[in-house]
Every structure is written in structure tokens, then in C-alpha cells.
């Protein structure tokens, strides 16, 4: 299972890449593998306020809809528009083309609550 060393992870299987005060968010390789065949992605609206641990997006596979939780609080700064036409990017490139949205963090201290790669690997039993 691919767990990049430069990212932080939520127990609910989102990843975060920190770029200054911005958090780039997507779902992990483990999550996409569990969901399989993503056919629809619903991202939050740009400008929406999201709260750490609260649902803010939905990923739909053939079989089921799964909530995606904001790993940190803040305002949604950008969303990946490509996903509406290419939701399979979440399966094919979860840490790259499959990014979902960015958050302008209101409390970067929340990053301390997230898991480092080793702890996330342990969390999923990898």
C-alpha cells in the first residue's frame, strides 16, 4: 500500500499535504482500494467553511456512497474540477491527479492531531 512520507493522514483515510497555510486534501491509496471503481465525486463549494472531523464531500463507488471528512478546519480555497469528468483519478492517482480540494487553515495546530505515515500504516494494518 502506497503511503507517501511527506503527507499527514486522518484516521478516516484522508491525506493532507501542507503548503504554507493551505492544506491539500485527498483520499489515501488504502481508501481508494477499499472503495474501488469511483464513479462520482462531490466536492465542497469554493468558499465553504469546513470543520475538522465533519463530513464535507462524498465519494461514490459503484456499490456505495462514502462520506469524506475535513481533516482540518478552514475555508475551501480550491476544488479539483477535473474529477467531475474523471472520477477514476481517485483510483488511478490518489495522491496526484486525484486531489480533491484545498483548505485555507483556520487553525494549523489541528495538523498535530493527524497521523504520521508510520502511524497511519499501523492504523490500516499495513
Amino acid at each position, binding site marked *: 500500500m502506497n503511503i507517501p512520507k511527506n503527507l499527514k493522514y486522518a484516521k478516516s483515510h484522508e491525506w493532507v499535504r501542507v503548503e504554507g497555510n493551505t492544506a491539500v486534501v485527498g483520499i489515501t491509496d488504502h481508501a481508494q482500494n477499499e472503495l*474501488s*471503481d469511483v*464513479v*462520482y465525486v*462531490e466536492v465542497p463549494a469554493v468558499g465553504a467553511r469546513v470543520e475538522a472531523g465533519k463530513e464535507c464531500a*462524498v465519494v*461514490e*463507488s*459503484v*456499490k*456505495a*456512497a462514502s462520506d469524506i471528512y475535513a481533516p482540518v478546519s478552514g475555508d475551501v480555497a480550491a476544488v479539483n474540477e477535473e474529477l*467531475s469528468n474523471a472520477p477514476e483519478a481517485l483510483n488511478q492517482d490518489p495522491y496526484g491527479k486525484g486531489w480533491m480540494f484545498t483548505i485555507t487553515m483556520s487553525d494549523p495546530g489541528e495538523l498535530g492531531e493527524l497521523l504520521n505515515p508510520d502511524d497511519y500504516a499501523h492504523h490500516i494494518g499495513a
Partner: protein
Amino acid sequence: MQSTELLRRTPLYAAHLECGAKMVPFGGWEMPVQYSGILEEHAAVRERVGLFDISHMGEFLVAGPNAERALNELFTNDVSKMAVGQAQYTLLCNHQGGVIDDLIVYRLEPSVYLVIVNAANIETDFIWMNTNATVSAVIENLSDRFAGLALQGPLAGRFFEFSPLLPRFHIQRQEVFGAECWVARTGYTGEDGFELFCEATDAPKLWKMLLGWGQQFGIKPCGLGARDTLRLEMCYPLHGNDITEETTPVEAGLGKFVSFDKKLFVGRDVLVDQKDHGVRRKLIAFRMTEKSPPPRPHYPILAGGRKVGEVTSGTQSPTLGVGIGMGYVETAAATTGGAIEIEIRQRRCPAVIEKKPILKRGP
């Protein structure tokens, strides 16, 4: 969520793990939901061939001089219309006309029938049939002894020399790769194919041989995920979702599997009344007309801005690339071509009522 310790396993459990299956609980069984992926498996069955484990389904043998009469009083369809070697789709109803189960009955001999029932309903059906049969017939539950494999897809006919001799909706005794099987030309995918019922002990070898032989045709092992998308494109109802003890065959549009000519069968009064005087709701099929999340069971169905029903089955159609589903709506709203909306997370998404099946096939 059920604890996995309580779930039953088919004789092919080890074979599924070997094929990389993801296992899930289904109807009291631990079953493969997918191997390589639902979309890939679905495409294999539509374009080439796929192999399913259907050992979770139940097999009853009904025999004796009164077997025909017993089944005709229990089932909605007319088993007397079947010649030996034929199959028939039929329904087991309660006294209110509600569907206890939908099943396939095969006439193996003049007074011996094989009945295939849904996994979750094996005990219910067995008890119901035994307590409601008004004439004595032997009803034997062979579900533990038999395994079932479904070989489905346009290339399935190329597997066996006997294929041209076994027409659609027929069954015959046949040796397949050394295993004695009842081979039926039936399925739940809308494609050509076979369902093979064999002794449980023969199943692992048969599974392996079919997958090995099928490599030249690009065969894939297929799970319940693909089984669901394939059947929904064809609008085959799933018991527990689209038909239940609270819905009738007439409401579900399955009237052609009810033999109203029969003088006596369980549920007849209600079904005849519904046929003559109409029903309040009907099971419709629909397709989303704009990009939207896939419809799912229990989502509200609206017509003219008002709730007229609820989705019973829904998914993203792998073949069509759009959301599709079925659901009951008030009869006045159940017109083919009618515009409806599916409410998905507080959003109203446009859809159109389709003539069944949703997937229209060739010429």
C-alpha cells in the same frame, strides 16, 4: 454489521481468496463482492464471459405424484405448462399476494422438480412450502449438498460441445470436466450462459477447470457487485429490494409470471383483484438524464415536485455510464417517458422513466 463468525461459507471460499476476492456478508453468507473490480467484471460478462459462485442459493427437490399440484398451489406460474427439461421463473406469494421469494423451477422428470431459491430465504421458503402445501409431496432441502456456479456471457456457449443441444431456459444432466452436474441455460445477467449445480465436493475443481479453460476467452471470476449491476441493467428484480412480502407481482410488473387461469394458488384473490381493478403503485425503471450521483435505495422519487415513491435499487450503470434504478411510484406517475426527479442529498436530480429493461439489446 453481522459478525463474520456467524456467516456461512460456500465450498468455494478458499478459491475466492486465491483469486483475490474481497469478501462481504450477504444473506447470511460470506461472499465475494468483487475480485479485480466491479466495472471490469461487469464488462467481462457483457463482452466475453464471467464465472460466479452461486452456491449460497438454495436448492429444493420436489417430488411425488402430487408434486405438480402442490407447486401449482404454491407458485403463481403454471408448472404444468413445462415439459421435462424446461425452466420457469415463478413467485412464491403469501395470502396477501406479497412476494415471499422469486425463484426458478426446473422440471427434471415428469414428477420431479428442482427449485432454486434465494440464499436469505431458504429456511422461510422451506417452512412455508411444507406448511402450505395442501397435498402431500416430498420437499427436500438439498442446499447444503449442492454448489452452484454461473458461467455467463456471450462466449459461454463456446465452452461445451453440448451447448447447441441445450436451449435457453432448459436443463439437462451433464458431465462437465468430470463432475456430474445439472446444467441449466439460465442466469441473472441478461447474457447467454449456464448455471451448473453439482455436489459441493466437486465445486472447487469445477471452478478451477472453468477458469482455466476460459482463459482463451478472457474469462474473469465475478462477484456480487457485478451480479447486481448486470441484473439491474436488465431490470431483474432483487428480492428484499424490489420485491418483498409487502409488494405484489402485479405491482412489480411481473403479471406475466402469474397464471390467472389457475383456479387455486396462494395469493390468487388479491392478485386477481389487482389485475382487474388496478394497483396504487407500480415498479418503474428509470435513468438519470443529467450528470448526478448514482441513485441508491430509499432515495425519494418526485414527480411534479411532489414525492410519489422511493428508489428500491440503484447504481451507476457500467454499460451506459449513467445512474439507473428501479422504484415504486404512484400509478398515475408511472408512465414510460415521464419526467421524474430523484432526491439525492437534498438535491433534485432529473431522470426519465424507461421501458424495461433499461439496457436495450441488439436487433
